[in-house]
């Protein structure tokens, strides 16, 4: 336990143990001085301890559970390499730009975004996915059944967190302060959600999907869902929206939603429910956890930085805007004897395709068109490269600007919104030419 936390707990408990219990766990002392945990408090303490507490009624009020010792092991996410951890509980980690330098994002470099606590058991054995609601024939499918009943496809698909780039907001927006690395483009194997929904038979009343997974709420309250978003039927029926069970030809990483998840490419990653257990086809816009209020919503009109916006004026984010990232060289690199360098990166857009990428190394005064590869399939990101030559030594910035097929470019500055979503301003790296 950190000294600070130890001091804090001891101070709180020293002053008034019953108040401390109440504050931390909602625990009220019974008349016989034994602590009685109310439902949510018991769940919270159980979650914090990682176990149920069979004898909670006997636990004296005011006792700090002995198990609250923080161990000091260095933190690593097994199967991930080089990710920058923003938060460990819930676990959120992004990929530095220079580690996104592959056409297809390897599993160990794909970012991790969690709203709650992943399930402990992510074995495909016995795992089922229910399809129910506004369907003629509800389904309850094992992963083998998905593979056997429906055509299996393999697609390289962009997946980006709606809050990627939030760190660029001023005044700051609340939430995980992603910089540029909450994006990946792995190859995913699965079946088309469209085929599964057709097998279930959509009723005319079907309007939206609602997704559910096996993750648990941070509070430990089993009645609370950490995240449950969905999409309009049109997006669900797009042939590139999949139920996937392999990532880069192998089982999905447990932190990326094993054994089966949705992959709705080009829309905020939160639509792509991890550890998928159920799709509820609904006759109205889904209103699950983090689907309502201002979650994954932006104002329906442009606002000034810091402006207060009424909740009714927000609209749900759908396709992600055009964006790019410079993956080589790494920002801060010094070019040795030469004054030329190949700059590489990726570009993507949530609907359509990227038509052009331009780079500048004089703060936007002049632009060079990059060589842009076509997408291997719709909704994959596209790789680009350009050769830059520098006139002399000094400090330079390389900026990259993608333009999509509708002529929309990345902006220079952040279009501020209260929750810090959709920052697709240009990526900038710094280079030093030494001689």
């Amino acid at each position, binding site marked *: 336990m*950190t000294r*600070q936390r130890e*001091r*804090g707990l001891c*101070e*709180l408990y020293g002053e008034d143990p019953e108040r401390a219990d109440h*504050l*931390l766990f909602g625990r009220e002392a019974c008349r016989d001085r034994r602590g009685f945990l109310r439902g*949510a*408090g018991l*769940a*919270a303490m159980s*979650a*914090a301890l990682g*176990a149920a507490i069979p004898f909670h009624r006997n636990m004296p009020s005011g006792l700090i559970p002995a*198990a*609250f*010792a*923080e*161990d*000091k*092991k*260095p*933190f690593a*996410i*097994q199967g991930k*390499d*080089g990710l920058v*951890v923003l*938060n*460990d*509980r*819930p*676990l959120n980690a992004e990929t530095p730009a220079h580690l996104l330098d592959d056409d297809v994002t390897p599993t160990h470099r794909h970012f991790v975004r969690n709203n709650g*606590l992943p399930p*402990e058991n992510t074995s495909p054995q016995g795992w089922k996915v229910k399809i129910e609601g506004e369907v003629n024939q509800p389904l309850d499918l094992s992963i083998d059944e998905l593979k056997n009943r429906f055509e299996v496809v393999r697609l390289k698909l962009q997946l980006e967190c709606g809050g990627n780039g939030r*760190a*660029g*907001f*001023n*005044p*700051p927006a*609340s*939430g*995980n*302060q992603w910089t*540029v690395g909450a994006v990946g483009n792995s190859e995913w194997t699965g079946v088309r959600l469209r085929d599964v929904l057709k097998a279930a038979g959509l009723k005319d009343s079907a309007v939206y999907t609602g997704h559910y997974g096996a993750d648990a709420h*941070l*509070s430990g309250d089993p009645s*609370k869902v950490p995240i449950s978003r969905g999409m309009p039927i049109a997006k669900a029926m797009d042939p590139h929206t999949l139920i996937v069970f392999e990532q880069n030809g192998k089982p999905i990483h*447990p*932190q990326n939603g094993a054994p089966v998840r949705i992959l709705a490419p080009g829309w905020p990653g939160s639509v792509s429910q991890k550890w998928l257990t159920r799709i509820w086809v609904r006759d109205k816009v889904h209103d699950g956890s983090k689907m309502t209020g201002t979650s994954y919503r932006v104002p329906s009109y442009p606002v*000034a*930085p*810091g*402006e207060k916006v009424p909740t009714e004026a927000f609209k749900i984010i759908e396709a992600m805007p055009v964006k790019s990232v410079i993956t080589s060289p790494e920002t801060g690199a010094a070019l040795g004897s030469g004054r030329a360098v190949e700059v590489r990166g990726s570009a993507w857009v949530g609907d359509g395709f990227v038509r052009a990428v331009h780079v500048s190394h004089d703060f936007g005064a002049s632009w060079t068109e990059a060589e842009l590869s076509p997408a291997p399939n719709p909704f994959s990101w596209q790789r680009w490269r350009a050769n830059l030559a520098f006139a002399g030594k000094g400090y330079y910035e390389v900026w990259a600007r993608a333009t999509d097929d509708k002529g929309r470019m990345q902006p*220079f*500055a952040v279009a501020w919104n209260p929750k810090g979503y959709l920052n697709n*301003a*240009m990526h900038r790296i710094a280079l030093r030419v030494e001689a």
Partner: protein
Amino acid sequence: MTRPPFGLRAAALAAIAAGVVAAAAAQDLAAPELPAGEGAELVDAICSGCHSLRLVLQQGMSRDRWAETIDWMVEEQGMAELDAETGDAILDYLAAHFGDEFRAGAPSPFFQPPPLAGPAAK
């Protein structure tokens, strides 16, 4: 799968299905420490019940927005309600140390929002 030993940190680790290994090539996460100040220990103890303090350390909000955030946690995320005195102490600390001043560390520090004419937007 065997469980790692009990512990507050272990609860988070246990939830990572594949298990956690102290790997050499990983980022070393220092235990999160809040800046010293009145209310720091209170914030440390109360605000790490559900989520890591690292979430707090990332934020920058006005006192009002912190209050809204805490209200949201109480109303929708199962947090126990704070009494007025504790709430004030926590809000004072958060507003003082995690306020919404301009952040130099953001990816585009170059682009400050231009000053607005007229009443302040906040």
